């Protein structure tokens, strides 16, 4: 005992189960919504509702979480289904990244967790950076060939639905049975990745001695990077992660912001869940790109706030 890595299987099992128990109901909710969307959302409705311009569409998609808040565990099956219903992939990814952050529940929990630590500023920055980053990613994805972004199976689903074969049809009862099939299929498919991600997260959050990261707090660059890395490892829910972030009192606020924005977009379990829909290379590029982009934004904010003597 006392090293950086101290693994104990019962502790791993305990943490692993707690992550599964916390996230699974929300994953299930996401897949139920996914099944209902598949059978009851008219094809192309999303494209008719969203602006035709892809960039304007990404901007609107970044705010959809305000109306349709979803946590990061449940959102992937939903966006996969929305893509087959005509939602452009760039808009779907923007919604996927933004909704777990840009929503009223997260706003309230962040304010509560950071009371006494500039709660309004932290909350506005968190939601603002989350929105901006998600929209930027949407813009980038819009300019990428879909075959670089989506797994062949997801691509085939979209192509199939574009041919009109997945349009809702039949009686309500028959569509309910069909939505059950979609829900179960999505649930089983997504949960495999969730289980693997939870196992990796549980290994790190029980076996790694967290004192090892404390020396990193003294430098803004290292502090921001290390807390974003920690967010990846801990794989917390976006509605409650602020309560953990607020406890890193020795870390600068910008590092906590990095934790709060990066964590809901990329963590160990999400890396695996994303892999159910997106190509592995895209997922890795997305993780790396978000790490750099969010890190640089947070560090830049520190400079601006310091320049104008705004407390942070």
């Amino acid at each position, binding site marked *: *005992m006392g090293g950086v890595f*101290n693994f*104990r*299987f*019962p*502790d791993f*099992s*305990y*943490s*692993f*189960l*707690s*992550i*599964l*128990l*916390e996230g*699974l*109901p*929300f994953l*299930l909710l996401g897949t*139920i919504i996914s099944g209902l969307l598949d059978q009851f959302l008219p094809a192309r409705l999303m494209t008719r509702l969203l602006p035709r311009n892809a960039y304007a569409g990404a901007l609107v998609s970044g705010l959809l979480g305000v109306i349709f808040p979803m946590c990061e565990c449940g959102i992937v099956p939903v966006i996969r289904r929305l893509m087959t219903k005509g939602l452009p992939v760039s808009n779907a990814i923007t919604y996927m990244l933004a909704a777990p952050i840009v929503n009223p529940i997260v706003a309230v929990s962040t304010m*509560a*967790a950071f*009371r*006494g*630590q500039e709660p309004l500023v932290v909350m506005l920055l968190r939601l603002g950076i989350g929105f901006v980053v998600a929209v930027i990613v949407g813009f980038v994805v819009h300019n990428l060939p879909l075959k670089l972004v989506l797994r062949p199976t997801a691509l085939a689903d979209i192509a199939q639905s574009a041919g009109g074969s997945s349009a809702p049809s039949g009686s309500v009862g*028959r569509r309910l*049975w*069909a939505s*059950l*099939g*979609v*829900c*179960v*299929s999505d*649930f*089983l*498919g997504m*949960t*495999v990745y969730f*289980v*693997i991600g939870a*196992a990796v*997260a549980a290994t790190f*959050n*029980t*076996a*790694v*001695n*967290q004192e090892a990261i*404390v020396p990193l707090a003294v430098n803004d660059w290292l502090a921001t990077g290390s807390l974003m890395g920690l967010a990846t490892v*801990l794989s*917390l*829910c976006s509605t*409650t992660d602020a*309560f*953990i972030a*607020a*406890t890193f*009192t020795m870390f600068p606020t910008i590092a906590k912001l990095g934790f709060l924005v990066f964590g809901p977009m990329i963590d160990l379990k999400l890396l695996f869940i994303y892999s159910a829909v997106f190509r592995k290379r895209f997922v890795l590029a997305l993780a790396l790109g978000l790490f750099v982009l969010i890190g640089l934004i947070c560090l830049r904010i520190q400079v601006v706030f310091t320049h104008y003597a705004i407390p942070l």
Partner: protein
Amino acid sequence: MTLLVQRFLSAGVLMVWGAVLCFLYFSGRLTAYLHPHFHVFAVSGGIVLILLAMLVLVAPDEAALTGCAPVKSGALWKSLLTALVLVVPLLIALSASQDAYSSTTVLNRNYVQNISQLPGAQPSASVQPAAPADASLPGNDASSTDGGDQPEVRKNSKGEIQAEVVDFLYAAQLADMRQTFEDKQVEVVGQLMPAKENNPNGDRYDLVRMLMTCCAADAQPVALPVHPGAKSDLPEMTWVKVHGKATFPVVGGQKRPLIENATIEKTDPPEDTYLY
């Protein structure tokens, strides 16, 4: 045939997950895993999964349920693999988990010994600070004592104040709350760990409670230093009841709680082992 097997596999996996969620909830073990706010989601999820499993079994139309196959290509071995990945780790973890962390993980997580590191925490219901709520805000100066009534406290039969570990961390920063405890005999329950710092003689301990924000994965150990003046024979992480005098010496320019002249006795774990 393949579709039939897949249908049973899907239903079986859903049934196992639903049963595990419901079992943990109805056996009371869920309290060790999730914050009470999440219990309703877990049991609801379990019930829905069991219902889904039954619906998959009785679904009238095989064609309508082709989506039930975990892998649409229909390869049976992939369905079997999926079912194994979903069920085996869950059941192994369920049997291996001891519903609590050992000292290994507790030591891997930094002890919280200053309430400013716990912005989401609240004093226990047994001791409520009389000071305005805002005085508890991290970063605020809580040295003022004017105006507040004495907080209500719970006492044992010996007249000792019964409090939680986290209350002493608050008291270190809240003057009104500190007055309630300072130089008084107190009784606190927690898990015994050797002190990590300033313990050359091995006769100092930390009384540890885990504080859960959301689930056990994010639980943090909150520690109250205890100085009994003699070594204890009890093993690490034993649940103990500590009786002693609450003091608040200045360490590093800050008041820190310390239970002096402590006696340590083994006790049963509290009904709820976590603080929230």
